[in-house]
């Protein structure tokens, strides 16, 4: 593992991440040496490497780490490729992706997409019910389209087929509240820019902070 990567990990600002950093460094070292040569290793890698942040079965327990369980396989493949190529960047996830070999991607994606996603809970009922309206109806005044149009009812998402105009719309149901908010913010500022045709950058730019909170509250507790 390169020093620069180490630095970017240790430099994460919040205190509660620091204990994890030491554990991570150990993880990464082991990971780097063993590599991920075989497809059948996906489950082991998940349990030993990804689990620290995303949970062994892909159900994340920390607010800023996304749940991977039940995410569409295509979508996971795209995100891992984007992290590997630098199209999507994150201080914690990018160094992990840098250790992956191209042939690791598909088996990991297949593994996490097959895991059962646990139900989440919203922490603010009022906000969640406003979020439900925004999700299903959009905001006609400001031109925020209804999320349901692309992400399907109740944040189920849809699998894109191959072809000219098919994109994978990721599952959002029961995702971590903080993670959803952070992605909407990052799309709005352009810090995350790997969305096809700028669909999410345009959408998030039109949203208020309040709307981001509300829709995240709705999705976190949307159930099955």
């Amino acid at each position, binding site marked *: 593992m390169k020093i620069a990567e180490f630095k970017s990990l240790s430099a994460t600002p919040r205190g509660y991440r620091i204990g994890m950093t030491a554990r991570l460094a150990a993880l990464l070292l082991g990971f780097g040496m063993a590599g991920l040569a075989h497809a059948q290793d996906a489950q082991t890698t998940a349990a030993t490497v990804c689990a620290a942040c995303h949970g062994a079965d892909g159900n994340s327990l920390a607010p800023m780490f996304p749940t991977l369980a039940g995410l569409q396989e295509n979508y996971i493949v795209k995100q891992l490729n984007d992290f590997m190529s630098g199209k999507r960047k994150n201080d914690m996830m990018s160094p992990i992706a840098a250790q992956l070999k191209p042939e690791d991607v598909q088996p990991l994606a297949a593994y996490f997409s097959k895991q059962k996603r646990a139900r989440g809970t919203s922490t603010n009922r009022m906000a969640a019910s406003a979020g439900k309206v925004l999700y299903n109806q*959009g905001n*006609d005044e400001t*031109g925020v*389209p*209804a*999320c*349901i*149009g*692309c992400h399907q009812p109740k944040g189920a998402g*849809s699998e*894109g*087929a191959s*072809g*000219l*105009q*098919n*994109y994978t*719309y990721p599952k959002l149901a029961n995702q971590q509240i903080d993670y959803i908010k952070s992605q909407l913010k990052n799309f709005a500022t352009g810090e995350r820019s790997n969305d*096809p*045709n*700028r*669909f999410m950058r*345009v*959408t998030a730019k039109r949203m208020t902070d309040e709307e981001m909170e509300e829709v995240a509250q709705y999705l976190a507790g949307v159930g099955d």
Partner: protein
Amino acid sequence: MKKILISIVAIASIAVLPLAAQAQTSQTWNEKSAELTKVLETKGDPERGAAAFVPCQGCHRSDAMGKSSGAYPRLAGQHASVLLKQMTDIRSGLRNNPKMEEYVEDHLAKPENMADIAAYVSALPIVEDKVGRGPGTAIQAGKTLFERDCVQCHGNNGEGDAQKFYPMVAAQHYRYLLRELHYIRDGDRGNSNPDMVKVVKPYREADLEALADYMSSLPPPKK
């Protein structure tokens, strides 16, 4: 001598100018843009169109019926040629549509996507109970005006004309129609047919409301 020449030129250009300007606007309306010519030649596939239409559903809804509030127009059942002309006009900025523009800049840059969407959406059924109606108090007055000034292009039943790019205006949402009539009258809809602008120009508020009331009350025309 010089002075006389200048004034002759001046008079001539004054006389010629309005004509030239007029000729230019009607020519702009009739002349197909390169993009429109291209998409009209592209064969659309409705099955692929269903997938390409997904990013539009957040506004135009999954059945392409738009919203009865009129915020978003019904696209279902509209002539494919009209959908294509409006999409290309919105993309080029000829028709001003800031809400939609950013979503179609990249997505509709592929002519296939536009042709596929038009093939899919034009074949969707018009769901009559989802049409946003007007107050229903000026239908008769609207009918009189419509039959006098609009039928030659939009047809006796508001069915429009696919060959000539005239939109179907029957069974469209009241508030959307009213908004468009304002844009057309006040010069805010860049792509308005100039012959239509001429007839709409002198209308008062009540006339526009009556026309929108009438058009939104018309049943979906038989194809």
